[in-house]
C-alpha cells in the first residue's frame, strides 16, 4: 500500500514537472522486493539521474508479460530458475545475481503455532500449515527444502504467492507457513524460526536486450551500495 502510494506520488510529481527531462525507467520486480524497492529507487535515482517506476508481480508471470511486450528496462526475479527461462527466451541480456533470500518458518500466536519449534514440526503438527504454490519461487524453494529434509508436509493450501501465504498466518487462519526471511522481517510482530537447510533463492536482475540504461541499473543493483540496502532488509549477498 505504502509502495503504491509512493508510486502514485512519483507519477504525480512527474506530471507536475511536465516536461522534466529526466527519463523514466520501468522496473518489473518480484513482489518479495516490494518492501526494499523504495530505498533502491532512491539509490538509482540519485546515482543515475533517472526516474524509476517499480511495478511488482509474481516472478512466474514475468516471462509471459515480457513476451507480450511489457515495457520494462529491468526485470528482477525472485529466483534463478525463473530468470533462466526469461534469458533462454532471449528477452533480456545476461543477468546478474543481486541478493539471496532464505526461507523461515513463521507462526501465528495460536496454540498449534506456539508449539512449532523447527522444520520437522511442520510435518507432525495438528495445526494448519500453508505453503506457496509450487509454481511460485517461494513454493519451489519450500518443496526443495522439505524434500532435502525428508519431510512430508500436508499443507492446507498452496497460496499463489508469498504475500498471500504470509497473510494467512498474519490473520491467524494458518498456524505456520514457510515464507522468505525478508517477508518475516518486514512484519516484526511475527514469530519466525530459521528453517535449517541450505536452500537459498537467488534474486537476479537483467536488463532488457540492448537497453543501456537498464544495464546501468543492473550494475548498480549488483554493486556494494545496493547490497547494503538489501542486507538491511534481510537479504544476503549472493
Amino acid at each position, binding site marked *: 500500500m505504502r509502495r503504491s502510494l509512493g508510486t502514485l506520488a512519483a507519477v504525480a510529481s512527474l506530471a507536475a514537472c511536465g516536461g522534466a527531462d529526466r527519463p523514466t525507467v520501468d522496473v518489473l520486480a518480484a513482489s518479495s522486493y516490494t518492501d526494499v524497492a523504495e530505498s533502491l529507487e532512491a539509490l538509482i535515482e540519485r546515482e543515475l539521474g533517472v526516474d524509476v517506476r517499480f511495478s511488482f508481480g*509474481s516472478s*512466474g*508471470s514475468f516471462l*509471459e508479460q515480457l513476451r507480450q511486450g511489457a515495457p520494462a528496462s529491468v526485470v528482477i526475479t525472485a529466483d534463478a530458475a525463473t530468470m533462466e527461462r526469461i534469458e533462454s527466451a532471449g528477452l533480456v541480456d545476461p543477468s546478474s545475481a543481486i541478493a539471496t533470500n532464505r526461507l523461515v518458518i513463521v507462526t501465528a500466536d495460536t496454540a498449534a503455532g506456539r508449539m512449532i519449534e523447527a522444520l520437522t514440526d511442520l510435518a507432525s503438527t495438528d495445526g*494448519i500449515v*500453508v505453503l506457496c*504454490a*509450487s*509454481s*511460485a519461487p517461494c513454493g519451489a524453494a519450500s518443496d526443495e527444502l522439505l524434500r532435502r529434509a525428508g519431510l512430508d508436509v500436508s*499443507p*492446507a*493450501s*498452496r*497460496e*499463489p504467492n508469498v504475500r*498471500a501465504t504470509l497473510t*494467512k498466518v498474519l*490473520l*491467524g*487462519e*494458518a498456524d505456520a507457513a514457510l515464507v522468505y526471511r525478508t517477508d518475516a522481517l518486514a512484519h516484526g510482530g511475527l514469530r519466525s524460526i530459521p528453517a535449517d537447510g541450505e536452500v537459498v533463492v537467488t534474486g537476479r536482475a537483467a536488463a532488457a536486450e540492448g537497453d543501456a540504461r537498464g544495464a546501468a541499473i543492473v550494475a548498480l543493483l549488483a554493486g556494494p551500495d545496493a547490497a547494503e540496502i538489501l542486507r538491511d532488509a534481510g537479504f544476503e549477498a549472493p
Partner: protein
Amino acid sequence: MYALAAVPAILLGAPLLALLWRLPWTDLTDALTSEAATSALGLSLVTSVIATGLCVVFGLPLAWALAVGRGMPTRVVRAFCLLPIVLPPVVGGVALLLAFGRRGLVGQWFDGAGVQLPFTTAGVVLAQAFVALPFFVLSVEAALRQLDEEFAEVAQVHGASPFRAFTAVTLPSIGPAIAAGAVLAWARALGEFGATVTFAGSLQGRTQTLPLAVYDLLERDPADAVVLSALLVVIAVAVLVALRDRWFSIFRSAEP
C-alpha cells in the same frame, strides 16, 4: 457510429478470439485429462452447483422479503445483499475470513464446535455462494416486484392459503426469473477466484477450482492454462446457447 460500436465489440471479442487462436489443438486432450485439470473441473462443478442450490433455497425467501418489505430496514438489508456485486472479490474473501475464519466474529464459535471453513471445500462453496447470491436475489426480487399481485389474490379468494398461493401461482409465474437468476449465480460461482483463494486457499482436489488452477498453471504451463480458460469459455457459451430459446419463450409467456 459503426466505428464507435466496433471499439467495445473488439474489446469484448478480441480476448476470446485470442484464446482460441492460442489454443494448442494437438495437446488438447493431454491438457484436459491432466490430473490438475480433471480434479479442478470436478471440484468446480460440484461446488458451483451446491453454491447455486444454496442461493436458490435461501435467496428465494430473501428476495421475497425484499420485494414485500418497505422502509428503511428493507433498504439497509438490500444494500448489504448487493454489496458483494460491487465489492472486489478479494475484499469479500477478507471479509469472509473476518466473519467465518477461526478467529472470526462467527467463525470462532464454529471453531469451538470443531467446524472448519477456511481451507475446506465447504469454504469454497461459502465463498462462491457469497459472491453469487446477489445475482440470484436481484433477478428474483425484480420479478417479484413487477409481478401482478392480483394472481395471488385470486388464488386466495378461491381458497388457497397464502403459502399455497405463493407456491402454486406466484412461483411458477416467476419461473423464468428464478431460472435466469440461478444460471447467473452458477456462472458467477463457477468463475469465482478472488474470494475463493483468499478465504479457502488453493489446494488441488480440495479447494483448487478451475479459475485457481488456471492462475496456477499460467506460471507453470501457460499452454495448459489456455486450454482450461477456453474450457471455461466453452461452458459459458454453452449455457447461453442452451438457454437462449427456452429463456426467451419463457419470458414471452410471462407477459400478462
